[in-house]
């Protein structure tokens, strides 16, 4: 229970479904702030108190469990390392994979619980043989199946998402108000929870340090300078402060980040188009396809809120290769691609190889 409205209502529904429910708030930082600020929806003492108030209203026990060490090692340090290596990680996904449905789940199972229920918007559906599948939530706008795409069959076996069938977040808020939960109107959170003021760039500069480097075009000509390549993400347009305009007068986008050379490559939007993505770090969310080595139709989604794109996937040796029907924009190495079949999450992989849709020099 983060202290937000979703986990509070999820807990309420779990109680109502007849489960023996205990509220657990994860302490993810040893020096939590006192009061909630901006759009951060967790991790302050105020949030912990909100979670406890919700548990009180529901009449369930409530505890704070300290996962700050694991969170630092597996999520925060990983985030820094990935950015330093020029990749774009998704820390929420990492938290689901390593903390909520690993460290927390393992501890819960050891303490005699059967499952971890969260306020995520996603569905678990059992097939005719009782195998669990992960599906998109009914509330399309809030669907969080993407960030849960890392869960494996073993993890899904102990996951429970009571909000999966709810058509909209507004209904969850209404329900919270009806149940007398004080967090009914608490603002949504958007920012990364461990970056206090939402200033990812500044936070990274503090952790990684700054070092002046070149911004170059695709031909290698220097077109500007920057104070640290880690602050840039593929597809980014703003914040480059390029003095000279591009020859064609069109806006330039980050095409590539080269941390070793501390160089950022920029170019026109068209050059962002990617015809193929691939990665060898993958997992299946439930039963794997019977024959992944034979190309199969699917949809691929490369960001939490990106549109899914029809694609063909094939397991080629130990590498999962996805060819989208039309080129993808703004694909950054380190991003996670989640593969869907209909509403079902089939699996995911970390993108570590891409093939541009545009020949170099164009």
């Amino acid at each position: 229970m983060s202290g937000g409205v979703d986990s509070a209502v999820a807990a309420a529904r779990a109680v109502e479904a007849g489960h023996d429910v205990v509220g657990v708030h994860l302490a993810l930082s040893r020096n939590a702030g006192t009061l909630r600020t901006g759009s951060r929806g967790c991790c302050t003492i105020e949030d912990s108190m909100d979670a406890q108030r919700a548990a009180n209203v529901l009449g369930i026990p409530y505890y704070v469990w300290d996962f700050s060490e694991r969170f630092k090692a597996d999520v925060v340090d990983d985030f820094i390392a990935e950015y330093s290596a020029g990749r774009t990680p998704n820390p929420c996904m990492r938290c689901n994979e390593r903390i909520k449905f690993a460290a927390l789940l393992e501890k819960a199972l050891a303490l005699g619980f059967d499952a971890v229920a969260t306020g995520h918007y996603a569905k678990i559906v059992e097939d005719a043989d009782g195998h669990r599948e992960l599906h998109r939530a009914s509330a399309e706008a809030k669907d969080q199946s993407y960030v849960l795409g890392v869960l494996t069959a073993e993890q899904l076996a102990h996951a429970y998402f009571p909000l999966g069938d709810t058509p909209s977040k507004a209904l969850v808020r209404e329900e919270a108000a009806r149940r007398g939960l004080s967090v009914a109107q608490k603002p949504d959170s958007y920012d990364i929870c461990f970056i206090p003021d939402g200033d990812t760039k500044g936070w990274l500069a503090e952790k990684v340090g700054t070092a002046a480097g070149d911004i170059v075009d695709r031909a290698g000509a220097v077109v500007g300078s920057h104070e640290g390549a880690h602050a840039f993400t593929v597809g980014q347009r703003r914040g480059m402060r390029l003095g000279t305009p591009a020859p064609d007068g069109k806006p330039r986008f980050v095409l590539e980040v080269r941390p070793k050379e501390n160089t950022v490559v920029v170019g026109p939007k068209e050059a962002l188009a990617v015809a193929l993505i691939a990665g060898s770090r993958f997992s299946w969310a439930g039963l794997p396809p019977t024959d992944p080595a034979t190309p199969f139709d699917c949809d691929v989604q490369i960001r939490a809120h990106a549109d899914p794109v029809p694609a063909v996937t094939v397991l080629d040796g130990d590498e999962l290769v996805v060819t989208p029907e039309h080129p993808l924009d703004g694909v950054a190495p380190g991003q996670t691609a989640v593969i869907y079949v209909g509403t079902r999450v089939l699996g995911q992989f970390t993108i570590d190889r891409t093939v541009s849709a545009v020949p170099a020099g164009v």
Partner: protein
Amino acid sequence: MVYLDHAATTPMLPEAVEALTAALAVVGNPSSIHSAGQQAKRLLEESREQIAATLGADGIEVILTGNGTEAVNLAIKGIWWQRQTPARRRILMPAGEHHATLDTVEWLAQHEGAVIDEVAVDEVGRVRLDAFESALGDGSSVSLVTMLWANNEVGTIQPVEQVARLTARAGVPLHVDAISAYGQLPIDFHGLRRVTDAPGGAGLVALSASAHKIGGPAGIGALVLDRTAAVEPLIHGGGQQRKVRSGTQDVAAAASFAAAARVVAARLDDDAPRMAALRDRLIAGALDAVPSARLSGDPDPAGRLPGNVHFSFPGCEGDSLLFLLDAAGVAVSTGSACQAGVPEPSHVLVAMGRTEADARGALRITIGHTSTDADVDAFLAALPAAHAQAARAGLAARATSFDR
């Protein structure tokens, strides 16, 4: 429910509840001049005298505060502001003090230029007197000394008399936080000053206590202040309580505090050995059930609070044990300071030379005036299963079978 967390707070004594409700019906501000005010004043001062009597002090020496933490703040900051000079900036205290003290002296260090001098403790948490004596020196650079009478986590009783004597000799004022000792050990403020030859303004001059640790209400504490102690007030206003702590006085809370103090003082000779016997049985039973358990604090029964048991369970998380015992109907504590329930590794255990990993498996079980043999039995019955399960859960914070 089996309640074994008396160091956090104690159930209110029936006498204290009765005194509170009766006094709530009394009309009158004790500072008013009319008869109603005088009635309230009488009840207040009778209560103050009764509280004072249980601490070996006079009524006029007892300043009633909002809680124990306020009493500690008043003593430390109040004495500091009276005593500090550019040449006298050091505050001496043993390592492993309560947060009421730690955070107060740290604030003084950050904002007022105080210099904190933490004196080492031994492996049971007792201050090293030789180290203390050398840190004190001739006392000329020390503004004050502050220490716990007994540690609130591990129950180790400090050599209060020796420290009081050293500070008396050095002419330095000493504040003793007796909050965890009150109701468990005899406390005689005047007696201690006498046997340690305390001169005016030095040696033991201030002592903190709190009502809710002895079966009284939360929301009232006391600072015993010797007549010769110079203390700067933290709260200014109408000049109540020797002008040290202004504000309308809470007669009902004082009456309730006094009722609890009377009862506890009258029973102490019987109750302390009774609690100690429960404690020793609990310690022996727990070590029998879980041989790997490690008792923290003084293994000598005479050196620890009658109500304190503190174990480290290697390989377990204290919060897992707490949860499992709670689910089994037994309320205990991990013992360390919490911020909205977030456990920190205990600075007390770290000061005693224990590792952070060791400190994670800490569990504090504290016995009080309502504790019975049945409570100890219930704890010992619940412990083996809880321990076995917590040990299985213990590794989850490090690595899990879901890792890949």
